[in-house]
């Protein structure tokens, strides 16, 4: 159960970070070049704030997220491409930082799942379309037969 302990640890870190009053993207972070800034925002939206649960650094109020946002902007200003910025961060923090996991052997099942379920469903549907069989219904129980008889015997119209 090491992952459980690690998550517990993460939650403690989170709890200690939460009360800080820093906020998501602040005015002083914004680049003067709007094109560069737009790229920075797009990249940030795809990067995970490592101390938060499932928040992008673009949304997060954590200090670390602010540092990462500044880092992304620094690298863009140096003329790096979006890909280079992401690669740099992945090298530093691992795939954990990408909110869209890369397709590799480990995530093949994750990315393949929609197609797999869809294909399974489609096959089942085709199978259902072709099978035109009908099994007889379960026989009536004694109680039901009695009631049926009572209904047939009574004079009340249905």
């Amino acid at each position, binding site marked *: 159960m090491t992952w459980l302990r690690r998550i517990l640890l993460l939650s403690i870190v989170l709890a200690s970070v939460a009360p800080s009053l820093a*906020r998501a993207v602040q005015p002083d972070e914004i680049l003067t070049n709007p094109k560069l800034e737009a790229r920075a925002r797009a990249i940030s939206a795809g990067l*995970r704030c490592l101390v938060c*649960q499932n928040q992008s650094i673009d*949304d997060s109020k954590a200090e670390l997220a602010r540092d990462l946002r500044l880092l992304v902007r620094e690298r863009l200003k140096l003329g790096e491409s979006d890909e280079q910025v992401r690669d740099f961060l992945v090298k530093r923090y691992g795939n954990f*930082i990408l909110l*869209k996991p890369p397709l590799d052997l480990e995530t093949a099942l994750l990315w393949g799942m929609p197609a797999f379920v*869809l294909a399974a469903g489609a096959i089942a549907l085709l199978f259902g379309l072709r099978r035109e069989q*009908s*099994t007889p219904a379960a026989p009536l129980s004694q109680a039901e037969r009695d009631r049926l008889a009572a209904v047939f015997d009574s004079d009340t119209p249905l």
Partner: protein
Amino acid sequence: MIVETGHYALALALAVALLQSILPLWGTRTGDSALTSIAVPAAITQFLLLGYAFAALTYAHVVSDFSLVTVAENSLTTKPLIYKIAGVWGNHEGSMLLWVLILAVFGAAVAIFERGMANELRANTLAVQGCISLAFLCFILFTSDPFLRRFPAPFEGQDLNPLLQDPGLAIHPPLLYVGYVGSSIVFSFAVAALISGRLDAAWARYVRPWILIAWIFLTLGIAMGSYWAYYTLGWGGFWFWDPVENASLMPWLAGTALLHSAAVMEKREALKIWTLFLAILTFSLSLLGTFLVRSGVLTSVHSFASDPARGVFILVILSVFIGGPLALYAWRAPSLSQRSVFAPFSRESTLAVNNVLLTTCCATVLTGTLYPLALEALTGDKISVGAPFFNLTLGPLVVPIVLLMPLGQSIAWKRGDLLGAAQRVTVAALGGLVVSILLVATVRGGSVFAAAGLGLAVYLIVGAFTDVASRIWARGQGGRVMLARAVGLPRSAWGAAIAHAGLGLTLMGLAATGWGVERIATVKLGQRIDLGPYQATIENFRSRQGPNYSELVGHTVISQGGAYVTAVDPGKRSFPTRQTTVTEAGIVTLSFGQIYISLGDRHADGSIDARLFWKPLVTSIWIGAVIMAFGGIVSLSDRRLRIGFARRAARLRVADSGAAPEPAE
């Protein structure tokens, strides 16, 4: 004293649950009607006991009895009454008590209202319901006792998490829980059918109103939670693909699929085994949702009560109540009779395709939510699965669902005419296309995706009413005849049309986010900020004192072309007891769009960091959800779908066999 009696009632409820889960099952097995008939009074007694326990806990919160640990940790004498009451379920222990109370409400409702149902099915259903109750009562009493006392009692409580002190969050958990727990009754029906080995169209008819009720509440609960996140978290997002949100979305997707497959089962006696599976799946996902939120496996912004120690207990409950019925299903399902005669073009086939797509969506969300956990447990590698993944995988699945919806409504049961149905939706399709093209041509700055999404939404809304319109409209007939026809249409047809149109509205709001305007700036007093068609100016700052917080408010005037439109007061609240600050976003609704202002840090020169948004059509996201739920209510009022319909129709029905087939709708 009242608290002790509440605690005692809780323990008694456990004993009653034990009886309720064993005796009726035994009775139906051995044919002992005395034992079988215990189910009904047991379910009602359990409801009364749990109702009393819940009332006792509420009383303790209202009078601020800080000798109770849960009250001391979550309340404050100066807290407003509504949050004292909401505080009952604003914590782990109380929310679990609410969970079993709702479970008991559903059990009692089945006991009271479903009198016309076959005795055996009802007794078994209530027994299964008793089993769930038993497990959760054990969980509450042994690991999360809300009536735990502390001595000496503290003088003052620690206050409720400020984020939760909000009217939206006061009603969000009860709504969501009614949705989650409502699916339990459908699950119990399914397991009862598996136990008795009998499953027919009548079963689908009993179950449909209950599915609808759960679905209505789940829809409202999700919408409420999303709106809460939107206005409290302060950056204007409304859906984060957070595991806790996914946990509520999964049962909704499965429940939506179930709603449609149960319709097929009732009308055509097809998809029976599949419907049964969905019934089990929907509740399993609800349990998983409870597990994900309660166990602390995922720590997220929404998960306000986390404790890994309890996780193991819930894991056991989870494996028993998912594994058990699935095993029973695997054993029994093949022996259930199934008649699946499907014409390729018929309403049932479109519904089956919709089921495949919805289930794929559900499986995708489930995989995306659990994959990081599983991968880390197995290999130790950490990955993240976030919004970009879900948008990319679910987008292509939602589009065909939406395209298919009006078509499915327009095509007949049994052997439908695809060409005819396609002709009927032509108007809707053209409408959507024209809107898309106009938007691309006229509106600058928006993406093509947004325009396409809006066109799709128009197609869905117009298409939703196409079927109804074609059944009302008659050439050469007066308005009176058409009105009579409209009234005469089955309510379920109206319900479907309204609910589908509601989804269309939600889609419209989602698509319109593409035209949103965002400004992040350090704003000086009196400085005018352009926000799409409007301008915002922060005029002055004020301090305000609330009951348990102090607030800084920035009075902001919204104008359009120099003319005053309205004013709004975004603020920041400081809660001294918890030493937290919460942003109180200023939101104004202007013709379905909203201006959203959230304040940040204040600088020495009097300026303030602010995020200002113009969000066109954003309210239609939630209005759409409310309309969806309203469609569900209209369906529920359908003569054939009312709860207890079976009782009134009992005279006409022969035991619980399918009776005469319904005329095709």
